[in-house]
């Protein structure tokens, strides 16, 4: 089974302060650590596990700049067979439609049995790229996948619903799945492992090679436009408890004692 995994590099903002750029169009990226989108990492691991079980090959692709090749190389070190980069310069990357056009045009040039990507990306959190790409390719999809089972040209998956409930869905191949975090435990990538794939060639594709014009994928062709960024509204603010850890602990125990 040949699998394509679509990945993206994002800043880690879960545990970091995010500072708005003064032009209000982006964030200060200097002090942030960048890496493979968490959901995509689970997708890559799942693809490699499927390959190990069912045979076939795993390819990874990103739409990005040369700086993004490190996440592709990381996937090669994990066990992906091939990595491709689509040059992002003509793309309006804030529009998930532009991204999906690029990914679907790339997928059309190959014949993958299965395409995987993360449920969403940790930066913009649209959760659109997967189902949009599947829609453009005319192949079935399902989102929020928490387990995969392949049998006789079909694939059975569970998808996460709300409140601890899941549902099982069967899809005909080729299909596209968006992968939820927690589906597996992604393997560790060592520096040695990355060193081993250092010389592996990563083909770079240009949009026109994929039959895409700058009008379609550039800002003028964008379906969804990013207008501005701002700080979240202040809203209700917590009453802050300050002091030494000891003093804070005492205050917390007091509050708890008053209620429980």
């Amino acid at each position, binding site marked *: 089974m040949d699998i394509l995994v679509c990945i993206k590099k994002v800043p880690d903002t879960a545990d970091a302060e995010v500072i708005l750029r003064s032009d209000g169009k982006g964030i200060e990226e200097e002090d942030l650590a960048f890496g493979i989108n968490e959901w995509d990492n689970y997708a890559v691991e799942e693809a490699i596990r499927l390959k190990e079980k069912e045979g076939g090959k795993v390819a990874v692709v990103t739409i990005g700049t040369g700086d993004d090749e490190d996440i592709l190389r990381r996937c090669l070190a994990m066990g992906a067979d091939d990595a491709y980069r689509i040059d992002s310069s003509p793309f309006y990357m804030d529009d998930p439609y532009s991204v999906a056009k690029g990914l679907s045009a790339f997928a059309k040039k190959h014949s993958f049995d299965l395409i995987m990507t993360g449920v969403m990306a940790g930066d913009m959190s649209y959760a659109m790229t997967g189902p*949009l790409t599947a829609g453009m390719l005319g192949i079935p999809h399902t989102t929020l996948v928490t387990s995969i089972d392949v049998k006789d040209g079909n694939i059975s998956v569970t998808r996460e619903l709300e409140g601890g409930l899941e549902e099982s869905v069967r899809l005909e191949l080729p299909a596209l799945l968006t992968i939820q975090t927690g589906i597996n435990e992604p393997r560790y990538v060592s520096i040695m492992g990355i060193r081993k794939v250092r010389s592996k060639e990563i083909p770079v594709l240009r949009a026109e090679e994929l039959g895409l014009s700058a009008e379609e994928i550039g800002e003028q062709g964008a379906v969804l436009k990013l207008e501005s960024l701002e700080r979240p509204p202040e809203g209700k603010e917590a009453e802050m408890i300050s002091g030494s850890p000891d003093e804070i602990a005492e205050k917390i125990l007091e509050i708890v004692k008053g209620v429980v």
Partner: protein
Amino acid sequence: MASVYVIAEHRKGELGDVTLENIALAKELGQKYGLAPKAIVLASSARAFAEELADYIPEVLTIEDPSLENFLYEDYAAFLRPAVDMFGPGSIVLCPHTAFGMELMPRLSAETSLPCITDVTELELDGTRLRAKRSIYNGKIVSSVSVDASKGALVTVRTGVYQAPDKLSARGTIEGLGVSAEPVRKKTEFIGYREAPAGEVDITQASFLLSIGRGIKDEENIPRAARLAEKMHAVLSCSRPVVDKKWLGKERQVGTSGRTVKPKVYLAMGISGAFQHIAGVKGAGVFIAVNRDPKAPIFRVADYGVVEDMFKLMDALEEKIGGER
């Protein structure tokens, strides 16, 4: 006249509360921009759902077909593709940003010419431009995005942002939409539901929850948190990253995909406050949050906030309790 449509979400014979939240937004948009708010129920048997919704919205439209018993985007889209053509230019279609809306709306967008915006918290019409606010970068930034809604637009709305509206004084009307499914060769099949196993604790019944998140950093810190919880007579719960890493069982996860809890005290440590997590703590008596990042979104929902390293505080708490006994 252009309208704003709410697609009802239902599962296992029950209507989701999120549908009422979206009705509240639809009515707000209706008033502001002169759009007629309407609900659409797609189901194998739509009557009961429609009756329920007619208490809240002036017009309920139904699409009934045996294929619509359990949700599959293929079956829904087969009806909705021709339906959106009937809705008229400028109409807005709302779905909740849940497993249902996330599966359906971007796909429907790719299969029609209507643009889609997902996970929105606010909507505004500026001529034919539909503008939305969205929470990005882990809730630390808000973005404004827009699409051309002259033909119409599809939107998924973040849950928990809008409150269910009051009932109408005069019940709404219920009517069949009169649309047939486009023929499709189906490539997906619904197999069944799977309930998560019960597990060793029921965090929904706990009166005091000590909840840990990404800030716990390492599996070897889990016993430390468990020990503190026990000393404080609290039940240990957590946010998603801890369960994803298999450090604690799914039954301890607070949030939309885990459990919804209503403890008297919720003490969150090292949890940044993703909305999926916060949505699971709506009923807490006192909410105390401990986080190193003073800008963590959790401080916007907590009653008390502490900007401190969670491990330092855990040590201090343990010491204090130890001394009292």
